């Protein structure tokens, strides 16, 4: 029964160890102060127990030096822990540029994952070991939460916005993936596995799984089906070539960067931000495209930029 009894999950990512060290440090502080309080109370309780009903102990009002000491010592510890925890957190908040981007859509009650090459998975995520992976996540319905304890990463998956999370696995194997934000009836069944593979195996697995072309190819197909080109290719609407990641000037004089969130908004709510020099004629595609298709469209628009970048070089 006690065999394999753990006090921590596997350390399977580059940040797991750092988090665990901080956890141990906090546990040590916790145990130390708990011990101090418990032992002092027990000692006082025995040493100063009431020996007769007539006991009238000498009164002590307090002690300023002691008060200052037990304000400053916890304060010092808090500052150390805060700085330590925050620096780790900041590091975990910004994915490295070289990350492979995988798209995650949460819906009641499953995880849908799409690799850039177009492979789609449900409740299973295959990733190569020792490579930074960036997850761009959104939800089709309620708030979910993508959590992999072995990687010590977790992030809410919120409808209407993109959240990101990144990790770099250091061990091959299968690791549990949970939905940590209560999301309705089958919340506890919204689980899966992250399968970390050697890069060569991963390539093999990928090539076996490609069905409908890459994300960008699927996006291109959609782009065709929905006849986006009738406006965006004719000058009626702004050209989409090379806009990804670039600033766009809007009709109200403001400038926004054409990132995932902006593109998503422009498909769903075209009138929200009108590009300067164009009329608000685009119909909304809300209800006509799913969150996955949106991600494919964005991948396609993104690919238009990289192609252009290559061409200009």
């Amino acid at each position: 029964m006690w065999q394999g009894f753990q006090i921590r999950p596997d350390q399977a990512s580059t940040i797991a160890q750092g988090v665990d060290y901080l956890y141990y440090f906090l546990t040590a502080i916790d145990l130390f102060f708990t011990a101090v309080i418990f032992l002092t109370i027990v000692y006082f309780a025995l040493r100063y127990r009431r020996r007769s009903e007539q006991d009238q102990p000498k009164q002590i009002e307090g002690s300023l030096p002691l008060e200052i000491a037990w304000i400053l010592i916890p304060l010092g510890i808090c500052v150390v822990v805060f700085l330590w925890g925050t620096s780790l957190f900041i590091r975990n908040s910004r994915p490295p540029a070289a990350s492979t981007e995988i798209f995650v859509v949460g819906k009641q009650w499953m995880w849908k994952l799409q690799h850039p090459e177009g492979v789609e998975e449900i409740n299973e995520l295959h990733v190569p070991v020792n490579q930074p992976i960036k997850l761009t996540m959104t939800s089709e319905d309620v708030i979910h939460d993508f959590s992999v304890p072995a990687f010590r990463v977790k992030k809410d998956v919120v409808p209407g916005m993109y959240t990101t999370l990144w990790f770099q696995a250091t061990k091959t194997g299968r690791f549990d993936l949970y939905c940590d934000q209560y999301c309705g009836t089958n919340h506890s069944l919204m689980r899966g596995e992250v399968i970390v593979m050697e890069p060569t195996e991963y390539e093999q697995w990928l090539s076996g799984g490609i069905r409908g072309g890459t994300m960008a190819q699927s996006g291109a197909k959609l782009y065709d089906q929905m006849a986006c080109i009738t406006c965006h290719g004719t000058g009626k609407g702004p050209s989409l070539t090379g806009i990804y990641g670039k600033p766009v000037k809007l009709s109200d004089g403001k400038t926004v960067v054409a990132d995932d969130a902006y593109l998503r908004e422009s498909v769903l709510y075209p009138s929200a931000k009108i590009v300067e020099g164009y009329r608000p004629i685009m119909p909304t595609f809300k209800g006509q495209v799913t969150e996955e298709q949106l991600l494919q469209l964005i991948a396609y628009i993104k690919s238009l930029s990289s192609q252009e970048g290559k061409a200009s070089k």
Partner: protein
Amino acid sequence: MATAGENLDTRVHYLNANYGIKSWLLTTDHKRIAILYMASITFFFLVGGIAAVLIRIHLIEPNGAIFEPATYNKLFSMHGIIMVFFFLIPSIPAVLGNFLVPMMVGARDLAFPKLNLLSWYIFMTGGLLTLYSVVWGGVDTGWTFYTPLSTTYVNTNVLSAAFGVFIAGFSSILTGLNFVVTIHKMRAPGMTWFRMPLFLWSIYATSIIFILGTPVLAITLVLVALERIFHVGIFDPAVGGDPILFQHLFWFYSHPAVYIMVLPAMGVVSELIPCFARKRIFGYSFVAFSSVAIAVVSFLVWGHHMFLSGQSVYAGIIFSALSFAVAIPSAIKVFNWTATLYKGSISFQAPMLYALGFIGLFTMGGLTGLFLATLAVDTHVHDTYFVVAHFHYIMVGGAVMGYLGGIHFWWPKITGRLYPDGWARLAAAIIFIGFNLTFFPQYMVGYLGMPRRYAIYPPKFQVLNVMSSAGASILAVGYAIPLVYLIWSMRYGPVAGPNPWGAKGLEWETPSPPPTENFEEIPVVTEEAYAYGAKEV
């Protein structure tokens, strides 16, 4: 109630001043209203407790021992809603606060007695409405009512449950208002701010939270209801609304609400420790101001519930730093209580055991709060059983221990009779042990990654869950014992006399049970609080 006594009826007191259902339901006497609250919240505690027992039985099996996930979800939502809004929040303020605040300040009643009775009726209206909706049909959003789940996706009694909580909120507001005005305006001659018992300081701090926090929850629930009925879109991403705004507004109240639960318990402990150590409290003004500091700082830290919610990284850093600030006043209190014991004359009657238990459990609960304020560690343990364990240490280990300690301490004053001390000590010990056995394993299973609110969980977490459930059965026994002997003592307990513990404070200078007007004549205060041994010096 305590009518057929040995010699309690020889004089007129608040319990025998008049009889009959009407004399209770229409009373404006703060002491009787306190007893009305005590009966109501005991009832709600039993309902919430039954839910807790069922939850723990269910979790013995990884696949769920008794319920479908849908039922389990309703069960933990019911447990959370009932326990938070209808037991913990009113527990000490509405019961002990109502009974003691006027007596401690040396007044005949609260400033607005009719308003006080109204608060109880509001509380019961909200409570019964919520109870109806969580028992018949149920709610499965959890006590947090997160949008858009609660507004769009679930098909259960969200509206009526939220409406019940909304109504009960006004009871909190009016109670807090009554306390603040009473403490400001009704103090007896000579009762200066720095002569007040620390219980009053903590009730005052709690009232600040009631007054300034509860209305935000009220308006948030109104918005949730409008959103659910009309789909107006304030929290709906489809219209450009942001579900995270709901979390901001919700936690703006609900984080300070944790301190509504634990601050009064701290106040109780600050009364018990000096009495049973026969010592003045160590560092009176530090303990007093730390209560107010906790109340203020508690409003600055709500974002630590949202580190991973899509809230900005910068806001997360700010909230993390502010969250650590709460640790300081909490630490001040724990150290000062411990120092009060030094060179005291310590007796171990039941209330003292609860107080010492409170210090132990609150220390453990508070220190694990540091884990959750630390961004990187919270990233791992957020929404796992680690959080569940942490807040049960604070709310059950802290607030409920404090409540029971206070009930045991003032029981002779409330009823005029003593309970069997041996049984009470036994119950305190069983509760302390049972509590730790229940919730300590949850810290461990939480760090291993088990998410909260899971009806079905991976088998690898089973050992710790079985341990927790086993501990819960001990805890349940511990809670059942006081219920029996306290009810027994109301009729058969020995007569207590005005001051069975040799305690200081105005409430002990009047007979037990006190007369309706509390004091024969309004007392004049001439000494500091906790003037133990003052005459000798």
